[in-house]
């Protein structure tokens, strides 16, 4: 570590500091800044030339006096200490303790940027995770090692749903539960407290590491939060053999912080002012999930993305959807009807579902039941549209059956209690209650054997 301090800061704005006459500074190095009141700030070198060095300051550049700002280059990247002691602790966005307890002491320190997993080292995710939520387990199953975001909107119950998943998620055939890495970026005090209390009351707190950056913390720090959290997750999963569930909330705040810094740097903007590298930047985060050959642990990622103005084509949810393996979409309409969790089935998707369900994992009829429910629901939504034009009285008997199906599907299949933990078998049986509203031959996506076995009229 170099002891030399530079007092050559030339400009400070928008979280970026330019220091001159500091030669040979490594790109990506960690920086320690002492301001005129003696307070310490952390930074990272994001551009390095012989005569000027650009530093991104995690605590922001407000209230700096350039004349009396001392900058020290630490000659190392931003790292965090790792040990099993992480569990049960609360940290800020760059990994400093936030719970008043001493810092983690460990010989293991790792760069928060990690490095790309070799695609040849990956193992394809295949194990079904039961979340106890029918709309997810039955129709958009989560698989261990998957990255499946929750697309939500302001005022929708994504926090409650996330907390419920954390409480209930487990593997069907194993006792081991998940260790949780919880990363909050720009969330409100009340949201952060909600999670803390929920983890405490359900007794999982000792199995959770929290990295919290609140809405009034500096935005630049948000850029480090997911990286710090995933570095901890990688350690727990691949060094400590744990199955780790990582919650990132809210990626929209993260992307906005990225835009803020990019704009200050003068990067060329692309859509809606976000930098062209938003995709690659988010991919560096999301792709740290998964499974690795010959390693027991895994990282399953559940990012929360709130869609600005409920717009799924907004760059943040849009680019997220291109990287993640599906998405769970919450609907304001269902929420307004009092349905919890308000999961909108049509745009929701789990790409890895096909490899985690079926005879060996859940039940043999699961894939075709899911496909059939989707098809019927799509048809039912069309009928609903029609009914809103011509009136329900004008519909044929067959069409009215679809309406009734949609109604029951929303209420009893998608809708469930916040404490209701349904097993996958319960979910599938519930599905057959709904499917049995239709005659057997209408179920074209299900094999005759399964129909004979599960259709209610076939059970006599």
């Amino acid at each position, binding site marked *: 570590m170099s002891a030399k301090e530079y007092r050559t800061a030339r400009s400070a704005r928008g979280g970026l500091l330019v220091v001159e006459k500091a*030669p040979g500074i*490594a*790109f*990506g*190095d960690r920086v320690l800044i002492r301001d005129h009141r003696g307070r310490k700030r952390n930074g990272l070198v*994001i*551009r*390095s*030339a*012989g005569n000027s060095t650009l530093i991104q300051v995690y605590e922001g550049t407000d209230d700096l006096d350039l004349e009396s700002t001392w900058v020290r280059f630490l000659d190392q*990247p931003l790292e965090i200490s790792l040990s099993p002691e992480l569990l049960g602790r609360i940290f800020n966005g760059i990994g400093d303790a936030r719970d008043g307890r001493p810092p983690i002491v460990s010989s293991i320190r790792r760069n928060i940027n990690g*490095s*790309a*997993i*070799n*695609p*040849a*080292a*990956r*193992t*394809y995710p295949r194990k079904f995770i039961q979340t106890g939520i029918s709309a997810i387990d039955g129709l958009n199953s989560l698989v261990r*090692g998957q990255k499946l975001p929750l697309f939500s909107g302001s005022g929708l119950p994504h926090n409650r749903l996330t907390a419920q998943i954390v409480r209930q998620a487990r593997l069907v055939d194993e006792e081991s539960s998940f260790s949780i890495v919880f990363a909050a970026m720009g969330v409100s005090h009340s949201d952060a407290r909600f999670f803390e209390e929920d983890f405490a009351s359900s007794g999982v707190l000792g199995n959770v590491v929290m990295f919290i950056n609140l809405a009034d913390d500096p935005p630049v720090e948000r850029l480090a939060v997911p990286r710090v959290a995933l570095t901890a997750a990688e350690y727990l999963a691949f060094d400590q053999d744990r199955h780790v569930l990582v919650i990132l909330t809210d990626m929209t705040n993260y992307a906005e912080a990225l835009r803020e810094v990019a704009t200050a740097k003068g*990067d*060329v903007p*692309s859509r809606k002012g976000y930098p*062209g*590298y938003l*995709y*690659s930047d988010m*991919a*560096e985060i*999301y*792709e*740290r999930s*998964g499974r*690795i*050959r010959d390693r027991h642990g895994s990282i399953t990622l559940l990012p929360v993305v709130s869609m600005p103005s409920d717009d799924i*084509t*907004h*760059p943040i949810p*849009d680019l997220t*959807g291109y*990287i993640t*393996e*599906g*998405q769970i979409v919450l609907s304001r309409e269902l929420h307004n009807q009092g349905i919890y969790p308000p999961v909108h089935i*049509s*745009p929701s998707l789990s*790409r*890895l579902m096909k*490899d985690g369900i079926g005879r060996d994992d859940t039940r043999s009829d699961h894939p075709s039941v899911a*496909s059939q429910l*989707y098809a019927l629901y799509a048809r039912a939504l069309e009928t609903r549209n*029609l009914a809103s034009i*011509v009136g329900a009285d*004008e519909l*044929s008997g067959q069409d009215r059956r679809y309406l009734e199906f949609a109604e029951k599907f929303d209420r009893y299949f998608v809708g469930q209690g916040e404490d209701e933990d349904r097993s996958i078998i319960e979910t599938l049986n519930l599905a057959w209650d709904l499917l049995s509203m239709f005659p057997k*031959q*209408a179920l*074209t996506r299900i094999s005759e054997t399964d129909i004979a076995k599960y259709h209610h009229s076939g059970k006599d």
Partner: protein
Amino acid sequence: MNENTGRGIIREINGPIVTIRLPGVRSGEQVRIGEMGLVGEAIALIGEDAVVQVYESTEGVRPGEPVERLGWPLSVELGPGLLGGIFDGVQRPLEEIYLNSGDHIPRGVVLPALNREKIWHFVPSPECTSGSELAAGAVLGSVRETERIEHRILLPPERHGTLLELAPEGDYRLEDPIGRIRGADGRSHKLKLYHRWPVRNPRPYRRRDNSIVPLITGQRIIDTFFPLIKGGKAAVPGPFGAGKTVVQHQIARWSNADIVIFVGCGERGNELADVLETFPQLLDPLTGRSLMERTLLVANTSNMPVVAREASIYVGLTMAEYYRDQGYDVVMLADSTSRWAEALREVSGRLGQMPVEDGYPAYLASRLAAVYERAGRVETQSGDKGSVTLIGTVSPPGGDFSEPVTAHTKEIIQTYWALSKELADARHYPAIDWVSSFSGHIGVAAEWWHEKVGKKWEQRRAKALALLSRDAELSRIVNLVGPEALSGAQRWELEGAALIKEGVLQQSALDPIDTFSSPEKQYLLLKMMLTIYQKGADLIELGVPVQELRELPMLDKAKRAKQLFNSEQTEKLIELNEEFIQEFEDVRIEYAKFKEHGK
């Protein structure tokens, strides 16, 4: 290259873009950067400085560190041992990197793409004798690369002259000399089992050839409705979740190409893991051999360095052209060209170039066109026929097909499989939208179908598409005023379209029988649906109420036929068709009786 030893220093680091001062460096030349020895490519020369794009993360690199010229442009190794492998965007072997360095990709690794230790059994071509005059690209001999692929050892494209000697049949390693040739320069050059080629230069060939056969993919909506030819170029645009990757994987699995090159460009790591785990176990329906024997992967996943993403497409194309030059039909799948274009955008942004549309540089359209232009069927330098078929996915932001990459791509390609969010939401897969997709190869494909499968292919295809377009029209009416407004004949048209949609177009990649459909099966299925529609329409004309026909159990049975009978059981499909005709006949007779009686 006497300036090869020239060394210089780093001046500035801005992410993957590094400015260096290195006298004599050429534009496009490879350079080694800093103490870690990261490799990059000089992309611009400005006065004494050169701008380098680096294929790896530049974290920890400092101004003042040394740089070194390597003396050659970005090139790949071409020789036996490529098939079955997985390479990164600059052709480093990822499996070997995993064995050497573990789970993550370290920086500054230098490993040759091809295994130097492996022994290959070389059989020289009989016509290559000492003293014979060889033209560039001549076939010197062959080795068996995999059970199904005979790898022809080619004279490098820029070499020709008198063969001085050629090794006898026997076992050789890649670096072993297998012969010598006296070139046009009068000097003697050693020949090996492999050679190098710069990826940004298309490999030469004698002439372009007209493509004459469709690429059979076993996917009904592709083969029957929007065919692609061997040597053609296709694009698959679609919003996320519409199934681009599944379409690509299905083509990689089932198409009747000799070689499949899959370039995962800025996409998910798990998708490559999926291919690596499943392909070795999957058998090719045509040869019964493992699919991995004809497949090779280039992987630059979305979290890998963005500059290597730009290179990955060229690396894949060069390997594709190399197998084309051996006389093979190669399919290259690029997933996704949007990520490639974004890599261009990122580099151009960092260079401060003026953006035109959505931040993309002005040269986006010309670069895209140049990439797709490397597809085609050619007469190779040695007189064989080979082809490269290029299929690129496009990931339009927000599913907006008017964005620059989709719009420019659409102008270049001839076959367009547009994926629709609405179809995917209704779980209609493959979600290829029959309204906005197109194929410019109907004429060529028709000749093949008429000769090999059946004379009515073009006619039936047109009939089915007409019915589908009627369906779209009538559905709009239904949505406005309800189904009661339609006549019986019109409602039967809706039913006919549903038969085509569910019985032919929808195809499950997961169902072991349905996942692949031979041309014969495709032909018969379409025939069956159209027969049912036609017979029903005839009955409605006679006065049979449409409701009665809609409740016929045969409709559901016909929709299931695709899953009941595999590609070999064509006679079952013919039987079923006869059965249905008979059923209609029974309805007709019954109805005639009923009418008689009624009178």
